[in-house]
């Protein structure tokens, strides 16, 4: 019984984690940039859903449709105008730059929305269903299904579309991609835009479940780190595997060690994975 509960929770949460991490993973994999602003993007997406629902009465589904293009443009411009200038610099510089961006965005959110925790409460409430005698709230299920759908959408995009193939080509071998006539600069910007769009959409989904506050951005970012390292960098399947593993470890960890230790456990796991298997569960070696 307990096992089933842990498993179902892990499944639900794992898909959400994958969705949180996937944009981060894409940016790291393609641009070789650790994007510290990712967590704040997610929170901004959550505020978008919250604001649209409370002020305009727009359901979160519409918010997804708003978030995707607007975050894409935001990310695209950010990369083109700022990040692109230091893209070849050592990790120290790119990482510190995205940290600076995160400081600005996070501070702006605290300034406008205050640090209080808010909650998006759907009216009427969606209730809950029971699966194998485990009670799961419906909004959580919907969010999970949407997260999976988003993840699958990215997979399709990378697989089927021309721009997707170009992104994968740049990730696998930048120099070869240049020789094949891929405009790397623009692919970088598209990938960063996609990363931002995915973060924004993930934020909309998170708003259905978790309280919203600028203070939560580092927690999202932390999850993205762990998922990426566990699953392997830059692939959709890797993010899913990493998300599920992380959710499972946290679930089992909370049962045996108490919920307070779940986060510690996940980071310890991250460090162990980095040292022992830096390519992650599904990643291939050598794509640093």
């Amino acid at each position, binding site marked *: 019984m307990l096992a089933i509960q842990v498993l179902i929770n892990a499944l639900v949460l794992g898909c959400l984690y994958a969705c949180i991490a996937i944009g981060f993973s894409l940016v790291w994999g393609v641009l070789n940039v650790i994007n510290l602003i990712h967590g704040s993007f997610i929170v901004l997406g959550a505020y978008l859903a919250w604001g649209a629902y409370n002020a305009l009465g727009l359901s979160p589904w519409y918010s997804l449709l708003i978030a995707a293009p607007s975050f894409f443009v935001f990310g695209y411009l950010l990369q083109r105008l700022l990040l692109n200038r230091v893209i070849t610099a*050592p*990790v120290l510089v790119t990482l510190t730059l995205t940290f600076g961006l995160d*400081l600005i965005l996070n501070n702006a959110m605290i300034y406008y929305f205050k640090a209080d925790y808010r909650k998006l409460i759907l009216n009427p409430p969606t209730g809950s269903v029971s699966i194998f005698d485990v009670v799961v709230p419906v909004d959580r299920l919907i969010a999970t299904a949407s997260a999976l759908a988003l993840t699958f959408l990215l997979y399709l995009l990378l697989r089927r579309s021309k721009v997707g193939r170009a992104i994968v080509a740049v990730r696998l071998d930048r120099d070869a991609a240049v020789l094949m006539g891929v405009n790397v600069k623009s692919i970088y910007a598209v990938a960063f835009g996609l990363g931002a769009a995915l973060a924004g959409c993930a934020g909309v989904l998170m708003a259905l479940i978790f309280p919203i506050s600028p203070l939560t951005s580092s927690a999202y970012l932390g999850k993205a*780190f762990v998922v990426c390292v566990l699953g392997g960098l830059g692939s959709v399947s890797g993010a899913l595997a990493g998300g599920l593993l992380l959710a499972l470890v946290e679930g089992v960890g909370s049962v045996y060690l108490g919920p307070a230790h779940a986060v*510690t456990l996940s980071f310890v796991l*991250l*460090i162990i994975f980095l040292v022992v298997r830096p390519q992650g569960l599904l990643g291939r070696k050598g794509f640093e």
Partner: protein
Amino acid sequence: MTRTNIALLVLIACVAALPLFGDAYAMRLGTMACMYAIFALSWNIVGGFAGYPSFATAAFFGLGAYTTGILMNKGVPLSVSLLGALVLCLVLAAALGAVLLRLRGHYFAIASLSLVEVFRELVNNATDLTGGGMGLNIPLVSGSSVLSDATFFFYAMWGLLLLTALVVIAVSASKLGFGLNCIRQNETASNMVGLNSTLHKAVAFGLSACFVGAAGGLYAAWVHYIDPSDVFDILYSVKPIVMALMGGLGSPLGVVCGAFVYLGLEEVVWRNYIQIHSGVLGVLIILLLLFLPHGLISLHASKIWRGLFGRKAKHV
């Protein structure tokens, strides 16, 4: 001793004269300046000499603060507590360094960043020992008056800075420093000429942590109250990097100058834009990285600087 290292010691000696002119506010600033300089010098051992992008400063700052705080609450005198924090950070960081510094580039950056998270969560959860999220009160040390307290902690932090600077200067002139520079330039070749790079990196990581840990201990005793989100703040990890980038990577004098300039900027921002200070800080960081990637000094004498003692980090 090289000319720049003498200049560094002269600069530090000048700072010691601050209590002659300053009030309590100036002393507070001076203490912070010394603390930041310790951060920057320490970070420079791993980030500047060995070329590994460490984000672990906050981890050892917090660890040192809590070690000292806990020991003092058990009645151990400040000096012994600080020594305890220093030794603990040295040993723990050296052990962790031997493992983590096998990672390169982004992976090392993430691992060192995660160290901060792990330490913070551990302290958060060890409620019996640390008070958890409620924070930890630390007994007063001297407490006769505000000004004498401020003077005491200023000199303590200054002394620690002097110690750090002397050790860093000794390292840079030693076989260890020579080896760390080799590792930054070409780790494969370093191993091939018989350099035990694991040992070098472990020692470097230990040294870069121990003074930060002791500074954390002094900070804890100085402010009398610490909590995990304060002392394990990622900002403490990023600040020394910004200072080093400002002053010029690799040069002890450069990073200390960077630390002082950074503190000045931070103070101005704090006083004028309290509500948006972190955002303004972000803008400063970005402007610095975009327009002055080789530090403030590159504004004028970039060539002379590089020729004399500056080094650009390669493929960190």
